[in-house]
């Protein structure tokens, strides 16, 4: 027994003595060079702007931005009704001019929505579940889910009657309107029937080539009672209205004048709200913007792009970056051109500010917005050198070695650097924080 004890003591001693050599560090003592800069400036981030100001500005920008998005989505709904009529006055023989106008309205409505994406993952209104949807899904899934299963949408339209295409039925995809032909699998992710990309698919159609956007033709919407065109019109009308309804739900939660608002309590719980803000920023940068949206870098899949039907993906990246810039700087340019100017994360960033500012500008400005018109052709906008000037699907199909792809890779590096910096900023400011991902 005595012998055994001695061995134990020596063993314990050896294990302890060895720890230093093993280089084990706790989380606080990271050797990350990105983090080290932050620690250095920790003492210097005193600022006249308070955390309260930052939380206030975040909530104000959210409300203003979602308000703009509701307005632009309403414009889209109006343009779609001009194209195919209302439920009372159906247009059986719609025009190309109005179809093009509806497509333009979709393109025009995207920037304000894309800027709101930065408010995701922060336990805010956009992350809530909506019970009307079966299977239950987050409201964001109903607004902007991707990728869209086009064949599922086509199958529903083909296999049901026009009168069955009601709001409730389109939302409740598991029972009323889907048939065994369409649905073999219960999944909120797969059974996407509504939102921006469903509308995009209805307007542009499937995109399988590099020449232009999707292959939808006007005649897909032309036809009287009992035709598939009639059902397509009904479906598009319903999902255009649902988009406005769902965005309105989110906006109203940020509207301090509405009884259901969360804005007032959000502003009064500064520390909890700041944690939510950082959690959201880190998740969106690290997991969504910096990862999922850039999956094409490894997949090399030509249509692995967020707005694949319209070919509008460069705008997705541009305005997602703008959304980050808004929250970071605490500023927002409203649709009517006026500028909101408040406090942002910038005021807490200390020595990391210049890295974040440089990188966030790069993530936006590397995308040259030169795709326009109803069929999203490249226009003559001159693009600065070093920016992505070609169409997005062409960039992907050109493969991983192309110079345009290397620009995209540099964007990913910048976003992931921002994600790491944001985590450090949170830590430096004593904000209880753990970087979540989707």
């Amino acid at each position, binding site marked *: 027994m005595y012998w055994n004890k001695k061995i134990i003591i020596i063993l314990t001693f050896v294990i302890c003595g*060895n720890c230093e050599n093993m280089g084990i560090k706790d989380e606080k003592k990271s050797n990350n060079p990105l983090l080290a800069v932050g620690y250095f400036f920790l003492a210097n981030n005193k600022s006249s702007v308070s955390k309260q100001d930052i939380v206030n500005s975040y909530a104000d920008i959210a409300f203003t931005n979602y308000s703009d998005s509701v307005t632009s989505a309403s414009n889209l709904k109006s343009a779609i009704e001009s194209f195919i009529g209302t439920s009372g006055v159906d247009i059986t023989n719609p025009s190309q001019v109005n179809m093009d106008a509806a497509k333009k309205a979709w393109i025009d409505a995207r920037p304000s929505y894309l800027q709101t994406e930065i408010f995701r993952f922060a336990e805010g209104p956009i992350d809530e579940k909506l019970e009307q949807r079966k299977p239950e899904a987050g409201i964001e899934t109903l607004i902007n889910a991707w990728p869209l299963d086009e064949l599922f949408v086509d199958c529903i339209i083909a296999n049901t009657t026009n009168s069955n295409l009601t709001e409730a039925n389109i939302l409740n995809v598991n029972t009323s309107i889907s048939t065994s032909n369409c649905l073999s699998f219960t*999944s909120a992710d797969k059974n996407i029937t509504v939102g921006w990309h469903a509308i995009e698919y209805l307007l542009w159609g499937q995109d399988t080539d590099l020449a232009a956007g999707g292959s939808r033709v006007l005649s897909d919407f032309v036809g009287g009672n009992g035709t598939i065109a009639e059902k397509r019109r009904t479906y598009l009308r319903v999902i255009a209205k649902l988009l406005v309804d769902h965005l309105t739900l989110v906006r109203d939660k940020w509207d301090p004048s509405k009884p259901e608002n969360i804005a007032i309590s959000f502003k009064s719980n500064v520390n909890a709200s700041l944690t939510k803000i950082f959690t959201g920023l880190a998740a969106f940068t690290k997991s969504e913007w910096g*990862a999922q949206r850039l999956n094409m870098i490894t997949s090399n899949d030509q249509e692995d792009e967020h707005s694949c039907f319209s070919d509008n993906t460069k705008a997705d990246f541009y305005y997602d970056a703008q959304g980050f810039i808004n929250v970071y700087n605490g500023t927002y340019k409203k649709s009517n051109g006026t500028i909101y100017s408040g406090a942002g994360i910038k005021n807490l960033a200390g020595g990391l500010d210049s890295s974040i500012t440089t990188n966030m500008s790069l993530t936006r400005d590397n995308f040259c917005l030169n795709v326009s018109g109803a069929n999203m052709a490249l226009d003559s906008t001159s693009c600065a050198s070093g920016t992505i000037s070609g169409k997005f699907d062409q960039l992907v199909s050109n493969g991983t070695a192309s110079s345009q792809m290397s620009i995209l890779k540099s964007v990913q590096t910048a976003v*992931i650097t921002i994600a790491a910096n944001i985590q450090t900023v949170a830590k430096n400011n004593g904000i209880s924080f753990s970087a*979540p991902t989707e």
Partner: protein
Amino acid sequence: MVLVSVHRLSKGMKMKIYLIGLISLIGISCNAFRNPQDKSSINKLMLAFTLSNKSFQLDNEELSGGDTTVFDTTSQAFQRSAQNMTDVDRLVLFARGHAVFNVTWLSPGNSANPGLGPTFNAISCNGCHSLDGRGKAVEGSVQASLLYRLSIPGIDSTTKGPLDVPNFGGQFNPNAITGVQSEGTVTLSYAEVGGTFPDGETYSLRKPTYTIALNGAIGAQPSNILVSPRIAQQNYGLGLLEAISDEVILSYVDEDDKNGDGISGKANYVYDSVDGKTKLGRFGWKANQPSINQQNQAAFLGDIGITSPLFLSENCPGYQASGNCGLSANTGKGTGQAEISQASIDALNLYMRTIAVPGRRNWTDQVVKKGKTLMMSIGCTSCHLERLQTGNFTGIVEVSNQTIYPYTDLLLHDMGSELADNRPDFLADGREWRTAPLWGIGLVRTVNGHDNLLHDGRARGFTEAILWHGGEAEKSREKFKNLSKSDRESLIKFLESL
């Protein structure tokens, strides 16, 4: 040479050098303890700990995954990059792998991410390993994260593994893309079976029944079909387990129980599809996969129906080849092209190999420490080995040369008739299962909202999981049952701290 200059070094450095000398000496003794023939020595050692009332606490044991360990107690705890992954280029690769993990796959014919099916279990990795976590067993017919391996008696001539069921293959796929027949239906039901601890406390276990009805339109269900239910496991720490050398794992093998401690420890040797050779198996419930690379690509094919560079042919056995595969061919990738690129597989492999292991909570708590001592003293750690050392993993510096606390030996053990699936899998017989790693397991409830444990998720929490242990673990289980209620609770507190 070093010793010559000892007098010129600082006191601390001198101490270190002396320690190196000591380590060399002790190393010999340690190796003796690792040898299964000397397991009795380990038992003596443990007895010594108990009698001397010392704690089993090891320095840094809270760093379950060594330098990769991250302390996060939120629902995101299983998705963090290794703590020692700090270079932004590595973080970018990690992010790319995470994106692949989350991709939603769609039916062929869609514009984006086509290739799902023709038959499948899920449409994304995350669909079963939710938040890189553990699947849940659900009574009824919807089995989101529980899959079923199928076979008939016999051995495959190429792989030496299980023999596929004609027309259905080696895995049951209850879902199918539009226009394709699914492979059938399955129903899970539970019967409560009561029991009593010696101290009078009662418990109830749920005994599962699986009813599989294969689709007769595809083929007949063989009367001798073998079915093995398996739940999705957590994904962290896999690179560390892969970085443990074969030699270290094999040093714990005691297949014929030569040391007479009742614990065997058997290595599974499995087919490596990369080079067609036989390799030590270390992943999966029966250690039937030799590498993360193969595990990932096999899961893409078997679970989602995505062809990959390693498995280029769709999963369309027998009858299904005529109809199902035709419908899944239109992926826009061309004949002989994988539906997922090598670059995406590379990114996913890196991701799966470098997810941080969650660090411990409350490891200095007196109750937790007592629970650990009890766990060791009743013999659980004969298989759930506390501490292992990883070797060099070329290209994955984060997981190389780490001291880790995984609580597994990665070997097969007879777990008794109650847990048996009676379906052989390479060298694993119908009663044998791989020792499940226990690191991070206390956070499953936080991440996945449940505490379903064991290979098919039948156990509701740690106590039930222990009570299901039979075979080689029966003695330990009985010792657990005979502990006082407060000691049992201490042991569970320890498991919750992992």
